[in-house]
């Protein structure tokens, strides 16, 4: 039998198992059926209910507009799947091609897609995390609980961590006229993702909206009252604050523990894969039948020196699902690389914040358009003289232009002959430790628009 026959047979009556029934898992399932896969499809998920959308949980749901249960994802087509929900996978056997479930069941597969995502990082002291009034926000249940707590009119909310989720929650507290304190270890909000220049803008924005923002401090203890209700937090500078609600927004933990004995290159950093979403084993060898997509995937990006990058971005989950599904049912020569430039958005304090590229992959940043005080601007990020990312505040229409600059390795600072160019646009050092191992000489550019046509070509770096 030729490999073409084998592939045909697999497409007709093979067995695909998708572990992780959220955005990436659902979109991959739809894409598999779109690609003509008629075999058996099993969806495994640890939560009950159909796949749902998470971004609204920290926005529409917390404002009280939309109930937490109302974010079920729309379906683009019927996927005719068997659903195994409410039970997590707890092992993957690559020798026999089985997924083990926590309830003892074993599910055989020919090809598997892993999209188990991340979970919220809990407060580090278990008894304190269990106090009534202490929340994380990742699932519908979390959002529902926090929404109720906000609706009951707390005297003050403490948000621990001023990343995107923490900042969005602080924004909603102010919208609901609830006093809120934000505690952040870094010198400003969003610094870890966007650097000091944008961090300062974010800090001003929070304070202008009445947030009690405390940077450079660490919360050391969450104190409960006699009834086990959170009521006070202690900081490492000796100060305390009284609040009824604490939201722990300290990022996520990748759900890879279940793969501990699988032999895959999986760990706290995610699951390493190639640009075709095929998983790497511990030796760094590509597996043939194991695919990865979404927050849990750690994929090389040629634009960023082939570094393995995990992204907790909505679009990344959608795009990797599409690529993984296509490659699962395609011969080697027809496989697609996932070569898109990361994009991300956040809505807070009435401002639309968007980014394209990888802002942490930069040594300089410059405001190229608009005005920072007006909170309507674009900042471009550069690394060794080429554009690597851009962030917009209420100026999203321009980001496609910057995406093209990134894809073509355009020189930094980019010439931006627009009417709203600031007069004093000078690049300043970006304030995070930039990429340390500096590749010399070559970089690459992306060509093609159709997912099937997109390819990378080597180019010489501007110096």
């Amino acid at each position, binding site marked *: 039998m030729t490999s073409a026959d084998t592939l045909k047979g697999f497409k007709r009556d093979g067995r695909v198992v998708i572990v992780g029934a959220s955005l990436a898992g659902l979109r991959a399932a739809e894409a598999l059926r779109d690609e003509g896969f008629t075999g058996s499809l099993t969806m495994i998920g640890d939560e009950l*209910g*159909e796949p749902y959308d998470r971004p609204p949980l920290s926005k529409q749901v917390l404002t009280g507009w939309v109930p937490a*249960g109302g974010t079920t994802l729309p379906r683009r087509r019927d996927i005719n799947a068997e659903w195994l929900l409410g039970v997590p996978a707890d092992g993957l056997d690559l020798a026999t091609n089985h997924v083990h479930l926590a309830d003892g069941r074993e599910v055989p597969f020919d090809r598997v897609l892993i999209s188990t995502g991340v979970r919220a990082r809990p407060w580090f002291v278990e008894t304190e995390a269990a106090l009534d009034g202490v929340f994380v926000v990742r699932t519908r249940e979390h959002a529902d609980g926090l929404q109720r707590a906000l609706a009951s009119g707390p005297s003050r909310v403490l948000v621990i961590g001023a990343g995107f989720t923490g900042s969005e929650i602080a924004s909603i507290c102010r919208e609901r006229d609830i006093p809120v304190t934000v505690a952040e270890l870094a010198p400003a909000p969003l610094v870890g993702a966007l650097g000091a220049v944008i961090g300062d803008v974010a800090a001003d924005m929070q304070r202008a909206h009445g947030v009690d923002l405390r940077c450079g401090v660490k919360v050391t203890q969450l104190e409960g009252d006699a009834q086990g209700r959170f009521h006070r937090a202690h900081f490492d500078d000796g100060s305390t604050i009284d609040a009824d609600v604490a939201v722990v927004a300290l990022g996520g933990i990748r759900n890879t523990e279940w793969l501990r004995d699988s032999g895959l290159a999986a760990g706290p950093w995610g699951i390493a894969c190639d640009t075709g979403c095929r998983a790497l084993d511990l030796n760094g060898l590509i597996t043939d039948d194991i695919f990865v997509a979404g927050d849990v995937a750690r994929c090389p990006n040629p634009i960023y020196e082939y570094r393995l990058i995990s992204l907790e971005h909505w*679009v990344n989950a959608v795009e990797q699902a599409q690529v993984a599904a296509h490659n699962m049912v395609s011969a080697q020569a027809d496989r697609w690389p996932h070569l898109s430039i990361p994009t991300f*958005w956040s809505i807070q304090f009435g401002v639309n914040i968007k980014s394209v590229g990888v802002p942490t992959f930069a040594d300089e940043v410059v405001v190229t358009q608009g005005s920072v005080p007006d909170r309507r601007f674009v900042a471009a990020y550069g690394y060794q003289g080429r554009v690597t990312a851009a962030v917009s505040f209420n100026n999203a229409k321009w980001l496609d232009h910057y995406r093209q600059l990134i894809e073509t390795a355009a020189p930094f600072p980019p010439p931006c002959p627009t009417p709203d160019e600031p007069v004093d646009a000078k690049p300043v050092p970006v304030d995070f430790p930039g990429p340390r191992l500096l590749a010399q000489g070559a970089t690459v550019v992306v060509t093609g628009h159709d997912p099937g046509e997109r390819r990378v070509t080597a180019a010489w770096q501007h110096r």
Partner: protein
Amino acid sequence: MRVVVDLSRCQGYAQCAFLAPDTFRMHGEEALMYNPNPDDGQREQVLRAAAACPLQAILVEQLEGRDAPVGTSQS
């Protein structure tokens, strides 16, 4: 009915907020907020909004009967 907007595509043209204001609202100058689970009575307006989006960023459920996980509730 079920709706999702790809907010990475959305550029704040606000056509949807104009055509289906009960489902789509502008938050500040250009950020979009939407109800992912509007009443079925909104269907006509929402479909019109999805068609009018210059970025085609609005996805409306395309199925009436879909396979659902057994023993779990549908919204």
